[in-house]
């Protein structure tokens, strides 16, 4: 079954579409992954990246990241209407950092413990928010997660107090 039947994409599908950065790049520092595999008429990311790291000729092509140009700043993360952009940083020894979009209550704050969710909405562990900022009320939340979960975690849930 493809992502169009399930509503989530498998890492192998991302790999086959050439959407995953090479391991060496990931280990060097933060870089964006665009989980936007379908040709839809959208080019917001191309315009918002201050480093011109996202390429697209026709408005409906899938975004291609220049992994050399992307510095993983996360500016694009809360601006993507599809919430399909995630910054991953594997440069730290023990934990991976993931920056992902979040539009729910309660509001995220540095230091909060959160539930980590995979692409199917399953709980896959707990993480800690290391940074949170917002753009037009969409949060970009950076969470530290167990290092082996970098390709799994794609959402967080903050339990109500």
């Amino acid at each position: 079954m493809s992502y169009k039947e399930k509503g989530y994409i498998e890492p192998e599908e991302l790999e086959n579409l050439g959407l995953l950065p090479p391991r060496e790049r990931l280990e060097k520092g933060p870089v964006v992954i665009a989980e936007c595999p379908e040709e839809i008429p959208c080019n917001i990311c191309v315009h918002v990246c201050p480093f011109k790291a996202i390429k697209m000729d026709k408005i409906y092509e899938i975004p291609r990241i220049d992994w050399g140009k992307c510095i993983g700043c996360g500016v694009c993360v809360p601006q993507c209407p599809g919430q399909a952009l995630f910054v991953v940083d594997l440069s730290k020894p023990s934990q991976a950092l993931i920056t992902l979009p979040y539009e729910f209550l309660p509001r995220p704050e540095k230091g909060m413990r959160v539930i980590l969710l995979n692409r199917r909405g399953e709980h896959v562990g707990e993480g800690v928010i290391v940074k949170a900022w917002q753009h037009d009320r969409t949060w970009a939340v950076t969470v530290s997660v167990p290092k082996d979960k970098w390709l799994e975690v794609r959402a967080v849930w903050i339990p109500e107090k």
Partner: protein
Amino acid sequence: MPDYRIYEHPILDFRRGRRVKFYYRDKVIEAYEGESILAALYAVGYRVFNRSPKLGLPRGAYCMIGKCSSCLSIVDGVPNTRICIEPVREGIHVEPQEGLADIRMARKQENVETVKVETDLLVVGGGPAGLKAALVAAEHGADVVLVNDHYVLGGQLVKQTHKFFGSRDYFGGTRGFRIAEILSKKIKEYNNIHVYTNGFAYGYFKDGVVGVAVHGEHPLNLLVKAKTIIAALGAAEKGLDFEGNYLPGVMGAGGAQTLMNQYGVRPGDRAVVVGSGNVGLIIAYQLLQAGVKVEALAEILPRIGGWFVHAAKIRRLGVKILTRHSIVRAAGLERVEKAVLQAYDEHFRPIPGTEKELDVDLVLISIGLQPDTKFFAQAGAVMKWVPEAGGLVPIRTWGQETSVENLFVAGDASGIEEATTAFIEGEIAALSALLKLGLGSKEVEERRGKLIDFLWNEYRMAPVVRRAREGKLKVTVSEEEMKKIRVGEYP
């Protein structure tokens, strides 16, 4: 009294207006200025607003945009009032209608004043297509009258909280309700745009005259004689046939979206969404933001209909998307208390023994939209049934003109797409009208050519929208072909 109003929301601030009191069946209801009567009643727990004429079955809120007649009520003695698009006012008396109204009750409307106005361009409908059309025409010096049956301008944009896709030139990246605010504000800056909200265009008459019933405190029968008309009436959500589909709680997904995002009223506690097009997927996400649990989203086809990114957003929050599933039954006494889903085989036959009972109070239907084209049909425009466009739509030229000369169509009324194409079609229609009015320069002609090229040869070439493109191709003809159609030679 229960309180379904939302006070904290991750995206929206509900800045409620002044408090007003009105009467519902002699009960005093407290509401906020700006709410529709139905939203105010829903907020305090009412769910049944009318009864069917024959069987007396309960009727709840369904479309919330004045298209379905589920909410017809008597407001200050005026029957057949759609309370979903009628604003609350201090001291009004509202009664449920319980079936058909007695025409003798309508006496209040007998001495409504008739006002005649003339204009270069009449725009019917203040959604993205209509607002853009009015602005473009006014910028070029045309005198414009804009009528909108809802009391708020913006059409469906006012309830769209997601950031727009599409081109940055057409508000890509901005949330829909903000776009509505920006455009409505701009409209007010032009003193050559005359706006009548709460004004329903009821008919097209000889010599380009359109009748508009303006409701509210000062009702008017407005007769607009227009040299050109752009009708951008939008669409209505399609209904679905299943046992118990009449029960309050079965609602258009857009109806629930209107309640929660426009009025800040939580439509229920637990929902099932039927249909996985973009509207269903987006609304499932927005339900979660409003604190409604989404038990499942059912799709009868083997594939998700809408865009993958929208599906991924709800899937990663744990919403189940059940492909090859649909609803077979809603049950409850006077409102939905349960829904039963069932699996379907490849021939769309239900598979026995696969029923799943869900404990829900909302069944939200999002199986597609249907263009609102009554106005064109009544005006005598040549129409065609095009499934890819959502149903019956008027045939039009590349410049959006229908077979009724000087009557243009734009937006969802021309065939279902989305807001970005509604903006573009609205602009094309306005540029065509300007050329007809003799207000168009070479620059207008060039701009129109460029837009038509971008729309057809780039934007609509995206694989996910190509079906809509095919549909619209079937009803778009050249000026020469249109001339033939006008004299009765159909291709």
